[in-house]
């Protein structure tokens, strides 16, 4: 709206709504009044263009293809044009909405992708698998049967595996000319820190305290659970089924726990327990690594 300061008359520009919808006393539409009113407004140049208000479009049924409510062909043509403009505006608005919704979705996808840890996991998982299997065979061959020896041996295996895995990741980052300690790496490290620290603390307890061999189940089950929790937490910042692997470890821990409690300790509470650990930790990692080798390159390139 713009106020004309010279003649002090209110002058409206662009498309404005009609002031009212005229009806007769019996409730029917008074079309002649519409034309009279429009003619008056135009004659007095109060407005430059007249169109039905949005509410009137619905009330008068202008959405039908035949505009029958206006008797004058001139007005019919005029309002049909306005209706086309109105439809165009609604279509345009719908397109803008669709576009804006797509933009928001794209932004969300990109932000999620940015937060993801992108290093190839296949070599890391395969390395952990081979080391686990080798450690299982080694522990069995060395006949390490004491709870303290068992805990210390497998904590050492875990530390070596972690160190080599970090070296592999660092090498990948170096080759890609990217920082090793990137924000996604930090997020993954933060996610796994608590459950892994709990596992280490429990392992240390088995080293310093005098536990019986039959109590090793507590350690193994706890390690499986903690490791599963760590993978599940890391999986929120990684792709490629890490969370599924976390669930498998956790469920394996629970299954062993149930078996141990309901059926008593298994009769492998000597150096054969190392074979079980090697098959459990190493075997699952190796299977996961092979799965990644078969699928990872395809996904990264996609």
């Amino acid at each position, binding site marked *: 709206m713009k106020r004309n300061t010279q003649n002090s008359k209110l002058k409206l520009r662009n498309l404005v709504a009609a002031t009212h919808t005229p009806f007769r006393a019996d409730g029917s539409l008074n079309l002649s009044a519409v034309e009279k009113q429009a003619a008056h407004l135009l004659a007095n140049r109060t407005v430059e263009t007249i169109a039905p208000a949005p509410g009137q479009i619905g009330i008068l049924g202008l*959405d039908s293809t035949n505009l029958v409510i206006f008797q004058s062909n001139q007005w019919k043509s005029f309002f049909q044009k306005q209706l086309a403009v109105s439809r165009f505006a609604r279509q*345009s608005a719908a397109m*803008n909405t669709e576009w*804006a*919704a797509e933009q928001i979705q794209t*932004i969300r996808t990109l*932000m999620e992708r940015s937060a993801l840890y992108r290093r190839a996991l296949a070599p890391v998982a395969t390395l952990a698998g081979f080391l686990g299997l080798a450690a299982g065979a080694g522990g069995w061959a060395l006949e390490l049967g004491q709870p303290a020896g068992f805990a210390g041996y497998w904590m050492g295996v875990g530390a070596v595996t972690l160190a080599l895995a970090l070296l592999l990741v660092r090498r990948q980052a170096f080759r*890609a000319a990217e*920082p090793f300690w990137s924000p996604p790496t930090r997020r993954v490290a933060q996610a796994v820190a608590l459950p892994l620290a709990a596992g280490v603390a429990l392992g240390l307890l088995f080293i310093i305290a005098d536990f019986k061999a039959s109590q090793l189940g507590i350690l193994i089950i706890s390690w499986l659970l903690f490791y599963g929790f760590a993978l599940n937490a890391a999986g929120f910042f990684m792709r490629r089924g890490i969370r599924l692997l976390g669930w498998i470890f956790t469920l394996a821990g629970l299954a062993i726990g149930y078996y141990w409690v309901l059926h008593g300790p298994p009769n492998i509470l000597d150096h054969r327990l190392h074979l079980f650990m090697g098959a459990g930790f190493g075997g699952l990692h190796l299977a996961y690594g092979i799965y990644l080798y078969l699928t990872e390159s395809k996904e990264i390139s996609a």
Partner: protein
Amino acid sequence: MNPELMLQLDRVIHEKGRLAIMSLLAASPELSFTELRDTLNMTDGNLTTHIRTLQEAGYVSVTKSYFNKRPLTTCALTPAGRKAFAEYVSMLEKIVQQTRKLPVK
């Protein structure tokens, strides 16, 4: 829908490539040039041009350093860039919400 909203969208961010860069940086404290390039499948030249535009607008800061004796370029959103990005997303949400409120004719 109020067409004014479309006009209020930040022209610097509005471009597809720059919006993608801003989106990635909004979710991460910093990203290296190669991470941005690989994630967005952009050429070095294209990415450099977009980053320069964002840098000139004061939305992105670029840090050059060395990692293992190799040059490392990292990008991060400035506070102004983070604010502009938040306003841009907010404007998109308004466009969606306003049109949804329109009566069905």
